[in-house]
């Protein structure tokens, strides 16, 4: 059996109005891997995610989830395995209480009431929102809504968790909390994580490998540091590497000794500076 959780072969997606959103996309994501799909606005990230989750069907090409080709017959089974959290939590939360929203997925799976309740409580505990069961989604803050949106998918026990723009529209503290939450989740649970974002600062914190999607095509893929080193490619895709990474690049240009591993985060940068100081 294939070790790939998700595999796309020559996937093309054309919207009814003729817009080519995805063009010849090939990608392989192995089980348990944490990947990020980055790209500018309108690159086709959300379309790609919806294709993987079986919400829309590719116009051409093949999508395999755990070695099974996605088709009309197994669509519900695939949706059970692949959980998708939408960019705007208001699209995802449509029930009148948090409990109902989180219970929606497991209830649709036909689980018993006790199972649904325990899964809902468990999912809310994972996102740190215990006791929110009877709250109304429209009364929550944006950060809380995002967490509930993730809980609505966690309660289905997915094997692949897809999150579309997890950090969009959040204040710095909520953003930090959400990154931590995603990291904790992927550490505690054995799922494959796919995150679409243009928050390059967050990418290095939540993923091991990235894909750059531009104008519906995958233009680069590889380990985070490697991809961020391809500055021209990033520029073409209207992206920039993380600020710290840029700073060390500029320092290297000015003649400072470039570290072997360019730092991506503040912590890595601190370590590097510490190392330089010790050298002196």
């Amino acid at each position, binding site marked *: 059996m294939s070790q790939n959780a998700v595999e796309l072969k020559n996937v093309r997606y054309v919207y009814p109005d003729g817009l080519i959103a995805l063009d010849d996309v090939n990608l392989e994501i192995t089980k348990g891997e944490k990947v990020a799909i980055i790209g500018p606005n309108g690159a086709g990230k959300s379309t790609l995610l919806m294709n993987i989750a079986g919400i829309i069907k590719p116009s051409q090409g093949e999508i395999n989830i755990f070695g099974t080709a996605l088709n009309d017959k197994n669509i519900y089974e695939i949706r059970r395995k692949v959980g998708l959290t*939408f960019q705007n939590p208001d699209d995802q939360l449509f029930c009148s209480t948090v409990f109902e929203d989180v219970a929606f997925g497991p209830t649709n799976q036909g689980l018993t009431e006790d199972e649904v309740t325990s899964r809902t409580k468990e999912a809310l505990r994972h996102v740190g929102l215990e006791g929110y069961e009877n709250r*109304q989604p429209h009364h929550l803050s944006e950060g809380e809504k995002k967490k509930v949106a993730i809980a609505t998918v966690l309660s289905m026990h997915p094997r692949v968790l897809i999150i579309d723009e997890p950090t969009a529209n959040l204040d710095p503290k909520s953003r930090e909390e959400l990154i931590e939450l995603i990291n904790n989740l992927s550490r505690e649970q054995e799922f494959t994580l796919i995150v679409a974002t243009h928050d390059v600062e967050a990418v290095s914190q939540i993923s091991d490998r990235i894909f750059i999607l531009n104008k519906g095509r995958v233009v680069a893929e590889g380990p985070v540091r490697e991809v961020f080193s391809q500055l021209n490619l990033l520029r073409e895709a209207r992206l920039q590497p993380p600020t710290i990474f840029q700073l060390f690049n500029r320092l290297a240009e000015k003649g400072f000794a470039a570290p072997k591993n360019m730092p991506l985060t503040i912590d890595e940068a601190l370590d590097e500076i510490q190392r330089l100081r010790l050298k002196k």
Partner: protein
Amino acid sequence: MLGEFLKAFEDIMYLEKYTESKGMLQKINALIKLLSLTAILLSAVVSRSIYSLFALFVIVISLSTLSRIPLGYLLRRVTLFIPVFAAAIASPLLFITPGSTVAHINIGPLIIQVTIEGIEKASIFTFRIWICVAALNLLILTTKFTQIIQSMEELGLPRIFINMIAITYRFIFLFINEAYRMILAKQSRTTRKESRMQHLRFITNMFSTLFVRAYEKGERVYSAMLARGFNGATRTHNHNKKKPTDSLFLLAVFSICGLILSIEILRSAGW
């Protein structure tokens, strides 16, 4: 002005403060409440005599007091809706009901007469609507919306109908906010007094934009439902348990309403 109205409407729709107080109606099972308040509402609709209506009025007010809803608050809430219905529907009754004239209005060659019978009819009509709206308000104020939805399920109302109400309730809030933001955005760029025509044009534009956005949002919400295994059939688990006191309450309300209805029927039969 429009913005403030929308905000006020939002407060009315989403206030769940009183569902938490430990009053009488809050303790009653939601389905029982739905049935009893519907009985009161129906009795008000068919009642022709002021005495029956007054009895129902007393019931509504007592229930409200027993449920710890401030009387002034209920009056204000209900009265906000009244002018819309009553003024539009009841006011012609003032003029078209034949009887002894108490006043007349001259509009050019036209003389419109106001009759005592007209005033009586219009007041009874307004009173009746007041009781209906108050009964409905008691239900909304003392019951969490989810429980109302679950009671509708228990009653066996069509799924699609219940889904529509539930989703409307959830999303009307978002669209009120959306409209409110559009109004603010427009106000921030309005630097001089505009004509009524311009204002009207803005409102029509706003509504057409809202329709398009609602359509698009509908598509996205549907995708989100599909992503979580939705296949057309909705399943829910109900948690509303019934107690003996619930049955007692239902019996009491039904008896009173039954009594009022029998008196009404006897009266109309000429007794």
